[in-house]
């Protein structure tokens, strides 16, 4: 009786094989998906890494170019060049006898150059990734709660 009961509910051998094959295939598909996602993310990360390297090289090139252009401006506006250009344009050098000095009320005179404040090393700690990516859920919630409490305080009488 017992033997007959088991026999009645036992799977057919081909069905058991198909189940096993199906399970293995499922595992393989899952593994392939995970590997695919990993490869995709990894490739994107590498591509962005290379892009950062390229951009840093570009930045260095541009910094050199800026320095070079500043120097070229210096050469083009040098005292000798400016005098030469002025002569070519028909200007003549003024002497003390040709000059007339006028007092202009309120005019403070020609102002000397001022340099921008020294930038320091603040940029050295700049993060590549957006801070949003590194904020924890807890920090985000805490910030939200703080913001809401501040809003509430403001409307209280």
């Amino acid at each position, binding site marked *: 009786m017992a033997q007959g009961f088991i026999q009645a509910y036992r799977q057919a051998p081909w069905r058991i094989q198909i189940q096993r094959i199906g399970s293995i295939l499922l595992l393989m598909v899952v593994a392939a998906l995970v590997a695919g996602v990993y490869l995709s993310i990894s490739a994107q990360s*590498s591509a962005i890494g290379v892009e950062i390297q390229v951009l840093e090289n570009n930045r260095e090139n541009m910094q*050199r170019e800026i*320095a*070079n252009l500043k120097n070229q401006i210096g050469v083009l*506006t040098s005292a000798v060049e400016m005098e030469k250009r002025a002569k070519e344009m028909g200007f003549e050098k003024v002497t003390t006898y040709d000059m007339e000095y006028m007092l202009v009320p309120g005019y403070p005179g020609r102002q000397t*150059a*001022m340099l921008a404040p020294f930038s320091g090393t603040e940029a*050295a700690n700049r993060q590549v990734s957006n801070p949003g990516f590194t904020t924890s859920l807890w920090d985000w919630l805490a910030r939200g709660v703080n913001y809401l409490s501040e809003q509430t305080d403001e409307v209280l009488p």
Partner: protein
Amino acid sequence: MKTDFSTRLLFIRILFILAGAAILLQIVHLQTSASASDLRKLGELYSYKRELVYPERGYIYDRYGRLLAGNEQVYEVGVNLSEMRGQNNAQSIASVVSTVLDMDYNEVYGNLTNPKNPEAVYVVLKNYVSLEKGNRLKSIQNEYEKYIAEMGSAKSQSAPPNLRGLELAPHLQRSYPENNLASNILGFYTRNNEAVMGIESKYNDLLEGSPVEVVVSIDPNQIEEIPTIPSGASLILTIDREIQAEMENIIDRAVKSSGSISGTLLVYDPETGEFLAMASNPRMNPNVYWDYLDMKHFNRSVDYPFEPGSVFKVLTMAAALDNGTVQPDTPFVDTGVIEVGGLKIYNWDRSAWGPQTMLGCMQHSLNVCLSWVALQVGADNFYSYLKPSASVAAPTSTWPANHSGRWQCPAMETGMNPAWPPILSARDFPPRRCNW
């Protein structure tokens, strides 16, 4: 039949399991073996490189922001020997480089085929190549590549000669757009990264900034932003470029017309003490500093003692006026000669100027009158006005000391004999007394 198949299948299974287990064991072994840490270090060594990044050198401007010292882009031209294929390639590189950079063909070719270091993989042919020549080399290299691409035979054995391996590494070098203008003030910065003389040397710590060692990842997955290295601090001088240029023209003409060896000229604002110009002749062009290595005095306003001459009369008269010994309209009859301590002092033109006031004495720069004024002030009072300045170095002149330890300064009131750099006359006027 069925049993044989099952046995084979079992054998294959065991084989795969054993192979997998062997791979796993090897992985575990590699991670835990004694040489694992060494391998990890070796891996890290190749995944990062350390670079010493030099910040851009700071600029020097005149008082209105006009550039006096900046930086320009130049190239280091070299050849990557591992990329240079064959003798034909070396010939074409040597030919192009020697033509564009005015170098000897045989020397360049010899460097490429027989480098001094046989294990060298990179040979520097020339450094500090101008942007124009570097770009010309680049365009020729591109033309070669374009030609090869059109021929379609670059990878074949019969590849035509090309410039592969030729590399141009851009970098900055110090540049002085005004050439020799104010060069005696600026100093210069050599290609060996040495700041020599002038502002360049004095404020080198500020101008050069701080080199920073950065770790650069080679692995693109580990990439990090290279920190921004702040440039060296820039400086604004009190010098006015236009006044400086004009003063240099004046001193150049004066030296030439008088047949003098040298000359110096200072312009400063008496209200603020700011120097507006400091011209010196001769002076150098710092862009080609190597042509002036035999120059003895770089900035005669600072490093060359001179007799102040009649400039000193201002001090003598100021002391007398302050002391109340004379007034601007105090009369004096100039006889053309005065004897002080056994020394006869004459006027600059050796003539007698007759009745004068103190104003006239100054206007005509009369030595006799000013000597008389100094005698009226008295030696002790006169010397007390010549207070030494602690910030000023002692002069290099060798005056004899008398019994009291004071330096003897005959005719000092007229500016004869004592000597110090002109800048001291302007900056620390009155400069000093004789007993240092």
